[in-house]
Structure formats: structure tokens, C-alpha cells
């Protein structure tokens, strides 16, 4: 049930490797061509210990599990009714190729809007690296349309 009782629920942490090849593909996908992000030698000559992960990459990597939407299904939320409403990232330390990140998500808030036709589901995820350094904190707001809402007119967009 998508209600306030979910606030505070945490999900088991999971870990994912930051792979150099994956970073290069990510750079290609977002049109990033600067050497810090695409070329190991260029990254090192710019003072980095390896390829630098662009600022949204760690946030993306938390979907790197066999079924990243399973937690929505567990809450009986249909993926087709979910839109990404907002995203906030706080950065504390850089992320590089070769790092292993651990993600610890929890539900931070549940807010009903527009007479219950929309529900905002806020998830906060702490990200640490292999040395236990807190590298980022991520706050994701999902907009869940109720089943009776008009499917053709989403109020927010991913």
C-alpha cells in the first residue's frame, strides 16, 4: 500500500562496481568527450587517479541490480504509472573507475497530491565507496499516478 506507513522503510544495501568500459559508454551516451571521462591517460594527466565518473553516474549505478524496479512491484506500484519528478544529489567525494559503491536506500517521504490522484514517493540513498567514504547522498522523488488518473496527461515527466 502506498501510504505514510512506508516512511522510514529501508531496503537492503547493494553494491556495484564502477567499470571503466561502462564509464566510457556512459560518456558516449551523454555526449561527453573530455579526456577526464573517456581516456585513462588523459584522466591521470589531469590529476585524477582513474577515469572520473560524471556527476550523475553514481546515481544511475544504483539501478545496477538484476531487477531495479522490484521494490516498486513489492509496493504494488505499476511501473507504467511512475514518473521521475525530481532528483537531488549532494557530492562529498569523487567516484572513479575501479571503485565499488554501496547504495543504502530508504523511503524518506510519501505525500498525496491532487485529491489522491498523484502520490509523491521520496527515496533517499546514501552512497559509500570501498573505503567506507561517503561519496554522495541522493534524493529521488517519484510521481505515482493513481489507477483512475487519466493516462494520457501525466502531471510530471521523466
Amino acid at each position, binding site marked *: 500500500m502506498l501510504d505514510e506507513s512506508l516512511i522510514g522503510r529501508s531496503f537492503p544495501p547493494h553494491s556495484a562496481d564502477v567499470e571503466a568500459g*561502462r564509464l566510457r*559508454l*556512459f560518456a*558516449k*551516451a*551523454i*555526449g*561527453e568527450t*573530455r579526456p*577526464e571521462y573517456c581516456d585513462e591517460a588523459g584522466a591521470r594527466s*589531469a*590529476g585524477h587517479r582513474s577515469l*572520473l565518473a*560524471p*556527476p*550523475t553516474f553514481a*546515481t*544511475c*549505478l544504483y*539501478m*545496477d541490480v538484476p531487477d*531495479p*524496479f522490484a521494490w516498486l512491484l513489492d509496493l504494488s506500484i505499476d*511501473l*507504467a*504509472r511512475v*514518473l*521521475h*519528478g*525530481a*532528483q*537531488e*544529489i*549532494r*557530492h562529498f567525494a*569523487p567516484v572513479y573507475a575501479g571503485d565499488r559503491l554501496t547504495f543504502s536506500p530508504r523511503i524518506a517521504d510519501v505525500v498525496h497530491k491532487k485529491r489522491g490522484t498523484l502520490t509523491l514517493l521520496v527515496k533517499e540513498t546514501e552512497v559509500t565507496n570501498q573505503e567506507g567514504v561517503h561519496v554522495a547522498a541522493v*534524493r529521488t522523488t517519484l510521481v505515482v499516478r493513481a489507477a483512475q488518473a487519466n*493516462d*494520457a496527461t*501525466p502531471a*510530471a*515527466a*521523466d
Partner: protein
Amino acid sequence: MPSMSLVYDAVNVGDALPPLTLPPLTRTTLALYAGASGDHNPMHIDIDFARAAGMPDVFAHGMLSMAWLGRLLTEWAPQRDLREWSVRFSAITHVGERIVCTGRVTEKLERDGEPLIRVAVATANEAGAVKLTGEALIAAARR
């Protein structure tokens, strides 16, 4: 990326960041981004799924637009100085749209002894329809 931090006194409220103009959005980009980001939500890559969900077509991942804004910011200041940023996804970015990312300095402030620059950022299509708005806090050097 610039190697030097922004200098606090050299930045003024109202300053515009150099805009970042993207090529027209292709389905290829959405496919690449799905694979690279790990966001395999079929809404962005499978038109059959999108139509069954009541959408006319696939559309861009919100986080792809946020990644473009990341490029805008890190072409202006070193990534290490990006303290925090947030975006609101207010409209869908469609296949074929040519997106322009813009930013403007809105405030200079100090927090916990650190000089910071607040920047308002946005993405919009060629017609000026805004897709994302947000803001970033970037650390600056005193001199």
C-alpha cells in the same frame, strides 16, 4: 574541464554560463543511455510499452537531461567543486527535440565558511519550452 576553481569575487549575480546545445535527440541515444545508465525502463526504449501505457512514443530519461546539465556545470567549474544540485522534471523531452542547457548565477553566499555560487539551470527545446529546472551550489575560491 576547467582545472581552476571559480574565483568568488570574479563571479557576479546575473552572469550566464556558456550554454550547451545538444544535437536532436535520437532513439539511438536513448538506447545507449539505457544500457550505460542501467535504467532499462521500457518506457524509454520500447514504443510498444510506451503506447500500452498511453504515451504516443518513447521519451528521454529524466536523468539523461540531468547528465546534460552536469556537462553544462562541469564545463564552467571543476566537478570537484559541485557540492549539491537538484532538478525538477517538468515536461517530457521528446525524440527529435534539440535541447539547450542554460545556467545563470542567482546568488553568492557563504556556508560553513565556504564561499558558494548558486546557479539556476534549465533545459528547453528550440521553441523555448522548458523541460527541466534546477539549481546547483558550486564552491568557489576566495581569490
